[in-house]
């Protein structure tokens, strides 16, 4: 496997211009959609089959409902090192590339939609036109030609950076220190830690506050880890059922009777 490629999104630099969202649509030739107003500048409310990039807007308020800070964050598929969508896929359409990214092979996907419900971040979307699941590929065609994803290329503030994961991680940590010195005490990285949830995210973030402010789960969990426990409990239930049937139907020498 080649060196892992990653995307580092620094929320402190985002100005909410949505150039990334537009560049993504253009490069990936994603059709326009009806706007869905959310009461803020964010559009759409969620990732869709035609929006792989999404700038999220969050208004942080205090206990009295007074606005404190306005957060902008360009969100994207995390290309998790342990990916719920990839593990769920029953066809093997979802695969990991040599760069560590997660892609959906559109020629294999049969549209079962299991991956849609297995993503801990609600990224994968079902495209009703192609009847397959779709999501960000980190611009698979571009990165295989050394161009970098369209969103990172378009970002005017370098809030979105793309490169080798190990190099980006060093830069990200330096940036956190820098911001803390400037007084942003709650500046923190999300998804950078390879020993953290989901084995680390290949799209990781610098946040100016708790992940929950940005609608991100504090500790995302790989859903497939449940398979072992759930299966063992099912086997236990199967043993009880089998035992119950054996007792009910065994010969008690004569007519049934309780």
């Amino acid at each position, binding site marked *: 496997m080649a060196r892992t490629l990653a995307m580092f999104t620094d929320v402190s630099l985002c100005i909410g211009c949505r150039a990334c969202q537009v560049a993504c649509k253009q490069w990936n030739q994603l059709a326009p959609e009806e706007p869905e107003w959310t009461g803020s500048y964010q559009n759409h409310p969620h990732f869709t089959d035609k929006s792989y990039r999404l700038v999220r807007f969050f208004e942080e308020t205090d206990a009295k409902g007074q606005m404190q800070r306005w957060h902008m964050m360009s969100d994207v598929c995390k290309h998790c090192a342990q990916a719920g969508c990839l593990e*769920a896929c029953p066809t*093997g359409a979802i695969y990991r590339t040599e760069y560590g990214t997660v892609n959906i092979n559109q020629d294999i996907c049969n549209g079962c*939609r299991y991956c849609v*419900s297995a*993503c801990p971040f609600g990224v994968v979307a079902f495209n009703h036109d192609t009847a397959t699941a779709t999501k960000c590929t980190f611009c698979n065609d571009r990165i295989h030609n050394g161009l970098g994803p369209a969103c990172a290329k378009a970002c005017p503030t370098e809030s979105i950076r793309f490169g080798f994961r190990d190099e980006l991680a060093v830069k990200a940590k330096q940036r956190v220190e820098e911001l803390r010195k400037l007084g942003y005490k709650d500046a923190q990285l999300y998804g950078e830690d390879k020993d953290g949830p989901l084995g680390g995210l290949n799209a990781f973030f610098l946040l100016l506050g708790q992940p929950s402010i940005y609608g991100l789960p504090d500790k995302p969990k790989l859903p497939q880890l449940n398979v072992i426990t759930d299966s063992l*409990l099912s086997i236990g239930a199967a043993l009880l059922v089998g035992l119950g049937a054996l007792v009910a*139907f065994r010969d008690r020498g004569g007519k049934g009777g309780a």
Partner: protein
Amino acid sequence: MEPGLLKSADWPLLIDLYFFLGGLAGGAFVIATIANLLDARRHRDIVRMGYYIAFLAILPGPLFLVVDLGLPTRFLNMLMVSKPSLEIGMSALTVGPFHLKLFSPMSAGAWALLGFSVLAFLAALDVFLEDRGGRSMSTLRVVVGVIGGFFAFFVAAYPGVLLGATARPLFISAHWLGALFLVVGASTGGAAIALILSLLGGQARDSLSRLMRFTAFALILQLAALVLFVVAVQMAGSTGIARAGAQLLSGSYSLTFWLGAVVIGIVAPLALQLGGGIKKAAPGMTALVSALILIGGFVVKYVITAAGQAT
């Protein structure tokens, strides 16, 4: 926070119906197998009907699943693709074009469904030939029954495990769905056999009363699994999960849940049976109890799947 972020597969009612029929088929198959092992002659009606029902109930299953796919023509991709990618998940097994992913319940379930369908067909064929006056190949039936029994359990339980392996708040922290779906399969499988036998009449009373005793036992397990599921959801301690739980227990799905899954599906049939219905095994009472169990068994799977997908 979390709930707004997540997406749902939005599987339609057809899939709930498959979950229900698959469980019923698995339950009926296991009952027939065990009755056959213990006393094939005495429990002949149950063995016959169990294997017939198992086959007929699983028959539409694959069709429902294929119809629901975005691209039904690619249904074979669940089992094989011309060249599987190298990295398609932890513990993925590939042999030539075939692939099996042990941590994807849908992948394992597709194989189990294939295996169960074949064995359910063979078992039904065997009892059919016997019914037509031929001799049963009793050794073959035992082998098919025992191997098929494992597949039957798998087919009944895996949809619950499958839901548990999603990021949906209602499912992700509650580990009891596989167990619950399995015991619902057992109760509905038993109820389906009992319903048809009691409607046909003329069966051995003893066998039927034993079957009803088993379904009562399965109902108690069903109640226990349901309670454990609800407790696990309540104890999860996340706002998203609590909201999803509230949707099921006191929100828009609560009436269906309490009335359909709990009262009609468990409390009423248990009360009727414990009130003397078991001993007499009167056909009318047996049919009523069985019908209630079948309705409740469908509702409990439907309402949990629907509530979990909606919230």
